[in-house]
């Protein structure tokens, strides 16, 4: 084997393309307006689909009536009875129907599908279908669900629970110098990708089902279509179109929408397009899980953690979907980046009669980290210690073990990240300045920090189960293609994976392209989720590339030092002698990475990315608005493959995190999203996002693609606690729930003023 194939070289070698700010692979098409999104695609004989949805949160369907003024013979109508296979969306459990069959468990649940050649006619026809229900009592909150008086799922409303235990929490309380308790809540959050969910489907009895769409995980959609249509794997084909943002919101939902469009295509005999408008997308698709986290923490007299007792609950919505894995990630991130001998996390996900909550950037971690990082500031205030110092005394270091007894084998530099964040933000000087200025200023300023890790890749045994396969091939017209089902939706999959392949082979960036994300062409490299693409799939591409070079050297005499034309000439010779020029690699867990599902212990993640955030916030005590004025993010995400894209990930994640903290509120009425428009679901605009300073420290991870660890989700974890900690610093008031809107600030700050200043004369 050639020296270049040595697995340990990747993280230390100097590189030409990895680490360089090469332009986004599909960037030119996007800038020309030529990139083809699903709604840009036309088909001859295309029909348009629409969905009749439940208007009640829970009940039996008594009757479905069709308005006689409409000629229904023009329409294709699909109900659960038209499903040839299983009426289930295939996720972790198959409890979610593709179409409601006799009963509904949440508002906006799909009951019936319509298709017609005229897009406007089919939308109007939705309102001409009247469904009558027998109503059952619904459950809308974690508290109602956990009381178990009304059972809406299974026999106890409990979608999933975990118990994580280390040491003996109960023995720690008597010896504690301090015990601090707190409860923290987070609301739902909408992804608000600018492109709504959309699919085009075709069906023929000979060819089966083909769908094109805006989606993250082609093989997830593939799996559901196999079951819904009862077809063999080669009769279902899923092709990703250019995808206009996802953030987890196109992880599981496209399986439902693809099934719907394909059922209509089968019934109508025409290709069918279903592209939601914003109102429907907001009402019917997944959101981030709301949460409630209770902390009880014991510390010694020096501020060292003795015990953490954590009770975590999420609202999972009407079906289990991904709630169990979201809960697991929340559980594993709930103790924060701290070393503690005794930890107990008891976590539960509860069913309610709302649209199922789903994947959203961070996947449970932002909820858990909001709680622990707010709680650390509460502890600091309670024991009279600087919140920075409290964190510093308790940080995990290399050689420590986490709550799951995972040994921190890799270097941990969270102290260094903290130092850099403090100096970049001039944290102490600004705090002092604001403390001096605030009493005479109606605008109160403060500084807040948050420190955290984010586990890269699937949780626990996940990557072993996924068993991903990825690789490259070389076409006869001299293009190297990356073969993955990992998709591009803005985060940079195309760019990063082609950089890795070009680097590892020794070619130019423009010599490598992506094969279409088409289940008929590419192997299953796993879903595009969990910040796994650069680290896990990138590593597979790096290995496959080196393997191809070795193969060419061995079989057709490619020299050690070769030019691109030597390489393609060798490929030509190999093709003549042996056929297809391709190289595939399967996932191999890094040595020593083992997770015990039974005991819920072990290596929770193969690697962790680390970060410290600092927020400067101004609270206007006249308007009660809170504004983030400046933001600093220092992170260690392994090797940075592309600095422009990496910076963009951090900044975009922080902007979403600011929205999560201060703007974005999902208002449910009777379980239906009442503010399902961009007019009244508010995200940060160009006027709201502060200057963001993103800095990287790089420690290459030996088992990631060219040393990469996960990056995409990390930046969403820190803004909410950092911002609320800054608001505490500014106003002296602790807020423990997000979103924190001006009306919430008004209510609390006014109440405090009336208590504290009762004697104004």
């Amino acid at each position, binding site marked *: 084997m050639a020296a270049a194939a040595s697995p340990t070289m990747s993280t230390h070698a100097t590189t030409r393309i990895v680490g360089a700010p090469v*332009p*986004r692979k*599909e*960037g*030119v*098409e*996007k*800038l*020309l*307006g*030529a*990139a*083809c*999104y699903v*709604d*840009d695609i036309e088909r001859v004989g295309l029909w348009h689909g629409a969905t009749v949805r439940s208007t009640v949160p829970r009940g039996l369907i008594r009757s479905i009536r069709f308005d006689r003024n409409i000629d229904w013979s023009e329409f294709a109508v699909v109900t659960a009875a038209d499903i040839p296979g299983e009426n289930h969306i295939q996720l972790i459990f198959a409890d979610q129907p593709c179409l409601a069959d006799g009963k509904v468990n949440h508002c906006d649940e799909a009951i019936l599908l319509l298709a017609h050649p005229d897009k406007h006619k089919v939308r109007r026809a939705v309102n001409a279908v009247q469904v009558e229900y027998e109503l059952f009592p619904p459950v809308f909150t974690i508290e109602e669900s956990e009381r178990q008086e009304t059972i809406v799922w299974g026999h106890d409303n409990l979608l999933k629970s975990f118990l994580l235990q280390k040491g003996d929490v109960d023995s720690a309380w008597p010896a504690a110098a301090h015990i601090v308790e707190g409860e923290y809540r987070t609301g739902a959050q909408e*992804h*608000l*990708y*600018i*492109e*709504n969910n959309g699919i085009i489907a075709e069906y023929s009895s000979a060819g089966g089902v083909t769908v094109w769409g805006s989606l993250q995980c082609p093989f997830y959609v593939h799996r559901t279509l196999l079951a819904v249509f009862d077809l063999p794997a080669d009769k279902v084909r899923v092709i990703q179109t*250019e*995808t*206009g*943002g*996802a*953030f987890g919101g196109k992880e599981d939902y496209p399986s439902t929408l693809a099934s719907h469009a394909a059922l209509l295509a089968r019934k109508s005999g025409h290709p069918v397009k279903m592209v939601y*408008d*914003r109102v429907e997308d907001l009402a019917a698709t997944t959101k981030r899980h709301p949460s409630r986290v209770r902390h009880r923490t014991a510390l010694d007299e020096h501020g060292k953690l003795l015990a953490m007792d954590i009770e975590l609950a999420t609202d999972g919505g009407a079906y289990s979907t991904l709630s169990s894995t979201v809960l697991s990630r929340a559980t594993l991130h709930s103790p924060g980046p701290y070393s503690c001998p005794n930890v107990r996390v008891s976590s539960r996900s509860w069913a309610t009669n709302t649209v199922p909550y789903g994947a959203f950037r961070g996947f449970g971690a932002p909820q858990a980290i909001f709680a622990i990082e707010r709680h650390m500031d509460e502890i600091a205030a309670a024991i009279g210690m600087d919140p920075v110092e409290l964190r510093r005394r308790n940080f995990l270091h290399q050689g420590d073990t986490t709550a799951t007894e995972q040994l921190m084998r890799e270097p941990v530099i969270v102290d260094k990240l903290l130092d850099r964040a403090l100096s970049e933000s001039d944290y102490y000087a600004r705090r002092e300045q604001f403390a001096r200025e605030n009493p005479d200023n109606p605008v109160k300023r403060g500084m807040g920090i948050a420190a955290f890790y984010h586990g890269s890749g699937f949780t626990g045994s996940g990557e072993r189960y996924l068993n991903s396969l990825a690789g490259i091939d070389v076409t006869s017209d001299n293009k190297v293609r990356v073969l993955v089902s990992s998709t591009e*939706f*803005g*985060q*940079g999959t195309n760019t990063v994976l082609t950089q890795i392949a070009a680097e590892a082979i020794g070619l130019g960036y423009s010599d490598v392209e992506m094969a279409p994300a088409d289940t008929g062409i590419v192997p299953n490299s796993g879903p595009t989720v969990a910040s796994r693409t650069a680290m896990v799939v990138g590593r597979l591409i790096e290995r496959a590339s080196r393997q191809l070079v070795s193969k060419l050297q061995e079989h057709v005499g490619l020299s050690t030092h070769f030019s691109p034309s030597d390489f393609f000439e060798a490929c030509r010779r190999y093709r003549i002698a042996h056929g297809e020029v391709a190289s595939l690699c399967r996932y191999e867990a890094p040595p020593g990475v083992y997770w015990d599902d039974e005991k819920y212990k072990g290596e929770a993640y193969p690697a962790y990315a680390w970060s410290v955030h600092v927020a400067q916030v101004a609270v206007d005590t006249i308007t009660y608005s809170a504004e983030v004025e400046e933001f600093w993010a220092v992170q260690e995400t392994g090797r940075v493959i592309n600095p*422009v*894209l990496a*910076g*963009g990930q951090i*900044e*975009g*994640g*922080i*902007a*979403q995190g600011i929205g999560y903290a201060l703007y974005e509120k999902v208002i449910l009425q009777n379980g239906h999203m009442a503010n399902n*428009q*961009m*007019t009244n679901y508010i*995200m*940060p*605009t*160009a*006027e709201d*996002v502060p*200057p*963001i300073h993103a800095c990287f420290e790089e420690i290459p991870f030996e088992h990631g693609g060219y040393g990469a660890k996960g990056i995409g989700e990390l930046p969403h974890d820190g803004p909410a606690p950092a911002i609320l900690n800054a608001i505490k610093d500014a106003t002296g008031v602790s807020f423990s729930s997000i979103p924190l809107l001006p009306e919430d600030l008004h209510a609390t700050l006014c109440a405090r003023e009336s208590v504290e200043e009762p004697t104004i004369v």
Partner: protein
Amino acid sequence: MSASDITIRFNVNGEAREIQAPPMKRLLDVLRDDLGLTGTKEGCGEGECGSCSVRMNGDLVNSCLVPVLQAHGATVETVEGLAQNGVLSPLQRAFLRCGGAQCGICTPGMLMAATHLLARNPHPNLAEIREGLAGNLCRCTGFIRIFESVIQAAGSFTEQDAARSLDAR
């Protein structure tokens, strides 16, 4: 063509076009469906997200809110008109270099808003850029690299470019 259709003549990206359409059909749908200019995107359909931004008679408009009858006789510029003979404009090049586009769905509207801003104010400061782009939502970038793109493009933006953009009036 149905009985209620009217004839609309207008200039789109420098070309005279004529279509038959119902007068209240959205300009967005005319551009996408009748003229095949699918670079202009729909994000919300209610004028909040700016993905459908185009310039009409030198004004920046949300094409989802413009009935096509209002475009009769107008000059309309869309994202497809920015590159000349396949060569990216300085603004498009700056977006590519700075990472101003991620998923790309807001990009056409964002480019039109930025083009409009630079046409009226060739050297905007950051506050003016923020204000100029405040009607265009981007969920990926956090806007920071979009601001940087506009600043870089402004550096290479000439008075001649500005004059040409204003000619569209």
